[in-house]
Each structure stands twice: as C-alpha cells, then as structure tokens.
C-alpha cells in the first residue's frame, strides 16, 4: 500500500461521507417534487445531522455498551467499505484482496450491530424492529450471495475490483444474461437492505409499521446523527457498487489525479441518477404487506439463481 492508494482511499471516503446524506436529500426532493410539494432542500439531511450533533443525548436506562457502540460500528463498517470498494477508482487500497463477499459481510456487521442495539434497548419496538430487520436480512443474504456467485463466474474470482474491472474492460460482460439477472437480484437486495419502498417506508411516522426505523427509535442527539450518517453512507455505497457493476464507465483505472477526479464525478453522477430512478419508482409504488416480503425476496433469489445457471450453461 503506497501513499497514492491511501489518498485514493481517503478521496472515496470523503465522497461517501459527504455524498451519502446528499443522496438521501436528493431522493427526498425528487419525491417531493413528483408529489407536487416543494420539499426540503437537498442539503436537509446534512442540516439534520449538524443539528442533531449539538443536541442532548438520551439513552435507555437499561441499555448496555452495545447501544452507544452500534452507531460507531455502523459508521466504521461503512467507512471501511467506502475506502476499499471500487467506487471512483479501480485502485483503492488493498485492491488485490477486496473480496466481494467480505465487503458484504463488513456491511452486514453494521446492520447486525443496529439490530443488537435495538434489542439492547429492551423496548417492544426495538425487539419488533430487530425481529423484522433480521428476518428480512436472512432472506436477503442468500439472494445476495448467489448474485455474487453469478457475477464471479466469468473470472472465477470473487474479487470485487476484478469483477468491476472486467466489466470496464469488456463491455460484452455487462450485457451477458448471467450478469443482468444477477443485477436484477441486486436491485431487490438494495431496496430491501436500504429500507426503501416497497419493502419499508422510510418516511412513515407509524411506529407499528416500521422495520428499519423501529431499530433506531431510541437514538437521539449525536447518536442519531451518527446513525443517520452511517445509513446514508451505506445507501451511497450500495448504489455506488450497483452502478459500477451495471455501467463501470468513467471509473479511474489508474491512480492519476485527473483520472480519479473524473472517476469521482462519474460515480457521483451515476449514483445521483440511480437515486432519482429509485425515487421515481418509490413514488409509483406502495409498501408491501409484511408477510408478502418473502415472495419479493424469493423472487430476487430466483433471479440470482437463474444468473448462476445461465452463467454455468453458457460457458
């Protein structure tokens, strides 16, 4: 690892930290406009984070060290992935060993820590939210892993950088049926993992219907600021990975300053487009009944499985 790769890693981290909340703000603005409302400015999530950082912190009496630790773990795991994943560049630190499955599991540590913290609060809502979130998590993970398997077939490698680089070098990989099916599964996974419609309604005030929001009901002040930041970083990372698997165009292939600058602009633009697309989709859909979610997620799994089968057959 040299200075250049450290700098690229820092650039990616800055991009995700700054851009995550803006992505959230952009999606809310698009939604507001489509509903005929002005809505808050795109920078609103950042303003919220700044406001929360200065507010008093309250913690449940019965909670242990897990409760305050979870937001830190959430942000730390997201930051780790932000440094290592191929978002703006194919030359992040440790690129030879950035395994796709490892990346997924690092992100998973973040979600599990939030679920543990929700249980740690000892409230009915915390337990209910944790139960729902982990149920969905358990249904999402198989789909995700099989999708990774499908994506790794052409290279016989689960190295995330290599997979993205392969797509960047040979556009034919991107339109292969196996690749497309895996990405279809990825869409379902991302909507579920980031708590978007039709899986969860991120803008509801109805506490009994919440999935991911129920996990963080007890957080306040700086803790909530960290949770908000961490969740928006994860959203940006999922979208960043997805757009680079779909269309890795513009990603920096070497560590030059100009190339990385272009890579940053390219991924920011692509992620913004993806955010607008998801917001468009969200406006036109509604939230599925909780017991229907397994059907949706099973659909994602089937897509991934078909991806693997077609990939294996076509070789």
């Amino acid at each position, binding site marked *: 690892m040299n200075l250049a790769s450290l700098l690229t890693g820092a650039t990616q981290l800055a991009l995700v930290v700054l851009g995550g909340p803006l992505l959230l703000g952009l999606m809310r603005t698009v939604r507001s406009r489509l509903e005929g409302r002005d809505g808050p400015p795109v920078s609103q999530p950042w303003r919220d984070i700044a406001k929360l950082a200065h507010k008093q912190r309250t913690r449940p009496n019965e909670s242990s060290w897990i409760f305050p630790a979870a937001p830190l773990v959430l942000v730390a795991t997201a930051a780790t992935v932000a440094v290592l994943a191929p978002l703006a560049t194919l030359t992040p630190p440790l690129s030879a060993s950035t395994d796709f499955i490892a990346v997924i599991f690092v992100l998973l540590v973040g979600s599990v820590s939030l679920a543990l913290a929700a249980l740690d609060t000892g409230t009915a809502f915390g337990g209910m939210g944790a139960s729902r979130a982990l149920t969905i998590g358990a249904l999402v993970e198989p789909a995700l892993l099989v999708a990774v398997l499908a994506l790794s077939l052409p290279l016989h490698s689960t190295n995330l950088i290599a997979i993205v680089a392969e797509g960047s070098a040979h556009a034919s990989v991107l339109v292969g049926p196996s690749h497309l099916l895996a990405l279809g599964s990825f869409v379902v996974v991302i909507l579920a993992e980031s708590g978007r419609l039709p899986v969860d309604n991120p803008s509801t005030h109805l506490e009994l219907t919440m999935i991911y929001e129920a996990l963080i009901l007890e957080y306040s002040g700086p803790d909530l600021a960290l949770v908000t930041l961490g969740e928006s970083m994860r959203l940006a990372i999922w979208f960043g990975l997805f757009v680079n698997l779909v269309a890795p165009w513009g990603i920096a292939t070497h560590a030059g300053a100009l190339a990385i600058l272009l890579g940053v602009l390219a991924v920011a633009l692509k992620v913004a487009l993806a955010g607008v697309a998801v917001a468009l989709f969200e406006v*036109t859909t509604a939230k599925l*009944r909780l017991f229907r979610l397994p059907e949706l997620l099973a659909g994602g799994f089937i897509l991934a499985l078909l991806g693997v089968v077609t990939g294996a057959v076509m070789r």
Partner: protein
Amino acid sequence: MIGETRDLSSAELVAEATALFADGFRLALVAGFDDERGLRVTYSFLAATNRRFELRVALDARTRRGTSLAGVSFPASRFERELFDLYGVEPAGHPQRRPLVRHAHWPEGYHPMAAGAGPAPALSDDGGYAFIAVEGPGVYEIPVGPVHAGLIEPGHFRFSVVGETILKMKARLWFTHKGIERLVEGKSIDEVLVVAERISGDSAVAHGLAFARGVEDALGIAVDHGVEARRAVALELERLYNHVGDLGALANDVGFGLAQARALTLREQLLRLNERVSGHRLLRGVVTVGGARLLDVPTTFELDEIETRVAELTTMTLAQSIVVDRFTGTGVLSLDAVRELGVVGLAARASGLDLDARRDHPIEGVEVAPTILATGGDVLARYHVRRDEVATSLSTLREAAAGAGAYHLSSASGSGAGLGVVEGWRGPVVHRVEIVEGRVTRLKVVDPSFLNWPALAVALADTIVPDFPLVNKSFNLSYAGNDL
C-alpha cells in the same frame, strides 16, 4: 321529539328493552341525571322511519343500584360502565364492570357527575390499569401511546402479540376527558352551541346540528325548509372534506404517498370552499338554533371539478395492485359482529348493515340520498363506502335547493327535553338536551366513535401488527368525541 316515553322500575327494564330490540330499535343513548328530582337514568332507543322511544328509570339515590342491560345489549354494557364512573350507579348483573371513563389517578369513589361531587379533586398517583395479560409461549406485549408519532389524538393501545399476529388489542381511551357534560350545565343555549361545535373538531356541523335539533325538539321550534336545506349543504360539505382526507390517508398508510399528496391538495380546496361558503374552514357557525347561515353556495362547476379529481384520486389508488392487496381482507368486521357490537355509521354500512340516520330520521325539506352499502367489512369496503359517499354527497349538493342567506331565531326560551339525531360523516351523532327556562340543565352526547371503538379491537383479530395503523385509519374514530 324524544318519542314515546315510559317510566319503569329497574325490575321491568330488561324485559322492556328486550321487546324494543326485538321491534328493531337500537340503543342510541343512555343519560344519567342526579339533581333535585333525584337519581334517574334515561334510555333512548331509535329505529327507522323516525321511531323514537325512551325508557326512564328512577333509582334510589342512596343505594345507587340499577339493573344491567349487558345481557341483551353490548352498547348498554358500555353506557353502564360510563354511568358508574360518572354517577356511581352500580349496574347489578354487569359481567365486567371495569373502569371506562375513569383513569386510575382519579381518587377512589369520586364520581364527577353525581350530585354534590364538587370540583375535581387533586389527581393522585396513577395506579395503573389492569390490562388482561395474555399468556403463552412467545406472547409479548407492545404498548403504544398515549403519545404517538405524528399528529394523532391520545390513546393507549396494548397489543398482545405472537410473532406478528395480534391476539388481543385493548384500547385505553379517555385521556382527553374534559367534562363537557358538566361544563355546559346552566349555560345559555347559544353558549352551549359554541361548545357543541367543538366536541369533535372534524364534526363541527354534525355536533352543532345535533344539539340545535335537540333544542328545537325540546322547545317545539319549527324549522323552515330553507334553513334545513342550508344545514344539509353544510353537513355534506363536512362529509366531503373528511372523506377525501381519509381517502388520501388510507393510501398514505400503505406508503402510497402520491395519493396522499393529491388528497391533501383536494382537501385544502374543499376547506377553502368551506371558508367561502360559511366563513370558517371547518364550517363552524353555520348552524344556529332554529336557523342556519350560509354566505354562499358551491357552484356546479366547483362540484364537478371536485368530482373529477376525487375520481382520479380513487382510480389512481385502486389501480395500484399493492394498495388493493393491502386493503383487501384486512381488518374484517363481520356483519354479525356489527350487529352484536351495535356498530353504527360508515363502519356498519361497510359491513352491510343498512343504517343511515339521513334516511331513518328524515328531515322535511331535505332530499334523502341513497344509502351506500358495501359487503366485506374490510379496509377496502370502508374505502369504497367513503368513495361512493363522496359521490352521493356531491349530487346532494348539486340538487340542494339551498341559497345563501341567514336566518337566526332571535330568542329561544322555554323548557323541555329533546333529542337531536344527525348522520355525521362517521355515523349518527345523538344529543339529548334538557332545558329549563332557556338554560341547558343537562346535555348528553353520543358520538358514533363511542359505539364503534370496540369494533376496532374485534376487526383486528387475525390481523398482523404492521396492519394496525391501516385498520385504525379505516375506522378513523374520534378520541375527543369519545372522551367528552
């Protein structure tokens, strides 16, 4: 008119009430009285074609023992619990005389409506409320409220749940008990009208009109047809803005925000129409005793535009398959349950019970709109009833022979007792008014929410926790109107 009345002894009550139920009557209101004329209870029964019947039972003010009708009528059992909390009347034979109005921080033995109860004493520590604990492997409780996220009135819901399935839901209400019935005692008719319009903010016309009709009934005031036509306009405008709001809110509760945004715009349009027509966005001040005041009437053009936009809204909502899937079969209230629980209004019609005070208690000079019925009793049925009632309200408004104008009775005086029945947007609002020389001595109010709250718990059987807000919204019951 209060209708035919009959003075009874406690012993005759059950048999007499049973006969009335068999004759198609429903128990609409039970009022307690504790004054110089002694302790007594009146039971107001209503049936179609404007039949009214009142049973009166005088009780011993010392023993304060009455007879329970719980065995023949579920609504009666709740009226009796209310009567015990407020008057200390012990309903002999009541199977479950748990507190209803009374919260645990009320001092023991304090019955605020009893004679000589005096001003409200200091509140003591909350001794809690004994919720029935559901036990078994994997059963857990979710307490929600009384403070909720969002702008919702206070109510506490206790869910006993296995996994996501609701085994039992208990609603604890009366957090907004304001003592309205005591507050209005001795006030002039005009003063009480102001209070009546504020009993439930979303039903200003229904409550104002029910009170006005009660007074007119008590004092024998004849009301001009033109006045009734204007009142009908206000009543339908109230139904419109509430139904449209609910059509959006139901979609919003399943995450279909686009419909909510459209509905809110439409609702705002209706509120502005209300302001132009009445001078008040929530239509307060339209109804007066013996009169009604309209500044303007809606134009056909406005009504047509609203009709088109509501049709667009509901078509768009029901074209979304996820929304229909969420609505269908959710929160089913069977017709049997409706009959047994004495459910009224919109919720009863959505389960197929043909009950509408506009038709059952018609007013001379007001056209009766067709009653909208649905079957199924699920959220979708309640959505459909709202949608179709919007359409009938609009056609009622179009055909209304009302013109702008004001008619106000200069002075209403005299004495008497009267009953006012009005089909508000939720259901029948009933006021029983007693007046002595121009002063209100007793006002008993029954908002349909009081009769319908138990239905929510029944409709939740086999429902999953995340569907509760949707089911709750489909009933959209009033807390303020219930708690009084």
